[in-house]
């Protein structure tokens, strides 16, 4: 495969990975603090809608982004209320929020825009523009590195760079700061945190809030960056894939990057090489469509050992029964 073929595939990989990565890091914060979250999908979806809707009406994508984050945070707050304050079942809460987002987005959008759940298309300032890295144009002609820099790395929406920068940032926060230490501890042994005089509830709400913010960014990226509009169900199951990536990465930031890039890459390859002609017979489209998923299973079974979740994950912290 030559560079000219490879670069578009990798470019596509970066775009497809970004929402996954943001959602995956979101889940990482939440689950590291012991709160399982299968509601990533719903948070992304609702953020996608509100960011597009508000960006459209305000004409400013950044206000849209904030609105998306706020919407996602609201769902986080409900999730926190259910699973932290009222010690409810975290899985149920997540499932419920996914339904809620899927219903509400269409309902509200229909009520506001009457376009069947879609928002109007964003233009100009309401849309996330691409960032061109410095010297991108002048360096394009440098062999090999030129195209890599100018075509592959340059020219993405700012949120893409943010997403990738968040990987080391997440690592640093988790493993180098007091907040990170406490956050990891509360996911492993909340009673240790409690007896050390730190509020378990406070930490967990903080983690869930971070999760909300990151999902908000992920959703906003989809509806204002990748696409300049919201379409119903446009997250199309990416929240679940992000969840899979999270387990795949064993709840670690760098591995999460790897897992998300892998998922993105497999999809990009499947999209790019949809009809492979093997001479005697053509590989059916369906095989290529399913390929990312098949490969995921193979890789999981073959190379990734058992993933051990944070010990206190999924369990509400109960002192007194």
């Amino acid at each position, binding site marked *: 495969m030559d560079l000219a073929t490879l670069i578009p595939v990798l470019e596509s990989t970066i775009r497809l990975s970004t929402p996954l990565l943001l959602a995956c890091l979101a889940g990482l914060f939440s689950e590291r603090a012991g709160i399982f979250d299968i509601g990533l999908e719903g948070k992304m979806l609702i953020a996608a809608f509100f960011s597009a809707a508000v960006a459209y009406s305000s004409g400013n994508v950044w206000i849209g982004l904030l609105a998306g984050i706020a919407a996602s945070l609201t769902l986080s707050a409900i999730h926190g209320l259910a699973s932290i304050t009222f010690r409810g079942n975290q899985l149920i809460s997540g499932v419920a929020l996914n339904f809620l987002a899927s219903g509400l987005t269409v309902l509200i959008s229909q009520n506001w825009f009457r376009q069947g759940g879609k928002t109007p298309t964003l233009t100009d300032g309401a849309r996330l523009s691409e960032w061109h890295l410095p010297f991108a144009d002048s360096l394009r002609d440098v062999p090999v590195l030129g195209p890599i820099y100018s075509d592959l790395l340059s020219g993405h929406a700012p949120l893409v760079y943010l997403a990738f920068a968040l990987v080391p940032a997440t690592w640093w926060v988790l493993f180098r*700061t007091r907040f990170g230490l406490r956050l990891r501890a509360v996911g*492993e*042994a909340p009673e*240790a*945190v409690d*007896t*050390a*005089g730190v509020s378990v509830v406070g930490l967990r709400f903080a983690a869930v809030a971070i999760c909300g913010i990151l999902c908000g960014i992920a959703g906003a990226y989809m509806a204002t960056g990748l696409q300049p509009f919201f379409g119903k169900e446009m997250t199309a199951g990416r929240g679940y894939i992000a969840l899979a990536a999270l387990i795949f990465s064993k709840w670690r930031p760098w591995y999460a990057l790897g897992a998300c890039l892998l998922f993105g890459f497999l999809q990009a390859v499947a999209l790019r090489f949809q009809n492979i002609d093997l001479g005697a017979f053509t590989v059916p489209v369906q095989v290529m469509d399913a390929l990312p998923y098949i490969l995921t299973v193979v890789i999981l079974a073959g190379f990734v050992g058992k993933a051990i979740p944070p010990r206190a994950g999924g369990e509400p912290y109960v*002192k*007194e029964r």
Partner: protein
Amino acid sequence: MTDTPAIELKGISKSFGPVQANKDISIRVMPGTIHGIIGENGAGKSTLMSILYGFYKADSGEIFINGRQTQIPDSQAAIAAGIGMVFQHFKLVQNFTVLENVILGAEDGGLLKPSLAKARGVLQHLAQEYELNVDPDAMIEDLSVGHQQRVEILKALYREAEILILDEPTGVLTPAEADHLFRILEGLKREGKTIILITHKLREIMEITDTVSVMRRGEMTATVKTAETSPEELAELMVGRKVLLRVDKTPAKPGKSVLEVENLRHTDSAGVERLKGISLKVQAGEILGIAGVSGNGQSELLQVLGGMKTATGTVRVNGEEIDLTGRYSDGQSRRARGISHVPEDRQHEGLIMPYTAWENVAFGYHHDPKYQKNAILMDNAAIKRDAEGKIERFDVRPPNANLAARNFSGGNQQKIVLAREIERNPDILLVGQPTRGVDIGAIEFIHQQIVALRDQGKAILLVSVELDEILSLSDRVAVMFDGQIMGERLPSETNQTELGLLMAGVTQMPDKDKPLIHVVDEQLDAQKEREAKRHGHS
């Protein structure tokens, strides 16, 4: 010494729903003393101390620290009031290092680096001062329980606690470790710190405390000066009746050999060899006690014999070899061979905690034809009847077969397991830590049952970290260290010190100048290091 108590609790009451764990409790603890608290399982000791530490909130009552009334709504407040607590079940983050655990909640700023550096220094200092050596960079899960406990104490000292609460600290320690702990406590006391010690072991109370309070069913029944009381009196105060503190048994009459183990080897999933060629023999009508610090292979020995793990070597039961690796190397097959097994960890192995008592009575024996109604269904009525009989004969309290196992106290949970295994009338009974965390009333009963089984001519293999228990129950004692048997002794011809040294892998008496604990520590550290190397720090 002043007259102001370091701690004074007045009229503390606490209910968990319908259960009243503490009823109007008042207690005074003088500064610079060691104050013991004893009481049966569920008497409310841990609850009371958790209230003092702000872990639970009392329904009513007042707390005075050094004469000043103090509100302790959470642990933060307790720490600020100078209180430190070592919980019965450690509150450590298993996959954090010692340093990380120590600074958790007491960091000096947003970034970890400076906090860690400072803690390293303080820890070094504390280690020297109190002989509290632990590797600051070790993971908690790689530490022995004794070392984990040191971490808990270090945590409290790091926070500059003036009042230290220890809830059943010796339950999991070797004699040498316990002795060491007591020396530390005495050192702390000399510095003027106040210590509250909860324990089930009267010997420890007599040995180290200045005053002792007795709790029963949520109430404080007495507080006495240790010097003015006796173990017998305390036992009676606790249980409300006279208790036999020694095991009453006749000499063994060993019969034919029931269990023969030769060159047993087991490697765990991480690739560490846990059993390195064990050979032993147990005869009918005798109790072979296996002493050892936990983590030296006794658990694995029981698990292999009980069919939970595979191994190489030969094991014969009644002369017939059993399958150690293949299709028949599971718990079911062992039971069919007449092996009963009381596992070390009743909560994670012996019982299904959400199952009712009667469901647990069938656990492991769910294939027994007498529990089946027909080819498809189980006969729950029959199991229930069976369970009710067992509950009555083993005096399980409350005598309610429909109660979930998790709602029984540790001692009563243990009785359920024992009733299930002993009444199978096995040829050989494997018993691990039969009385861990159990109060003296229940200990007496459990010991009696084990001896009774022996007297029926059954073979018993007993594993315990309690040397008292090993010495008083066993007819022969073997000591395990690092996956091997270090030696065998007769209880009448040995003592705690000798066994304690064997348990640490020391086969010769060390020279007089070196404190025992250092010898033990060195051995244990060396062992851990070997292990860590084999793990390859994966």
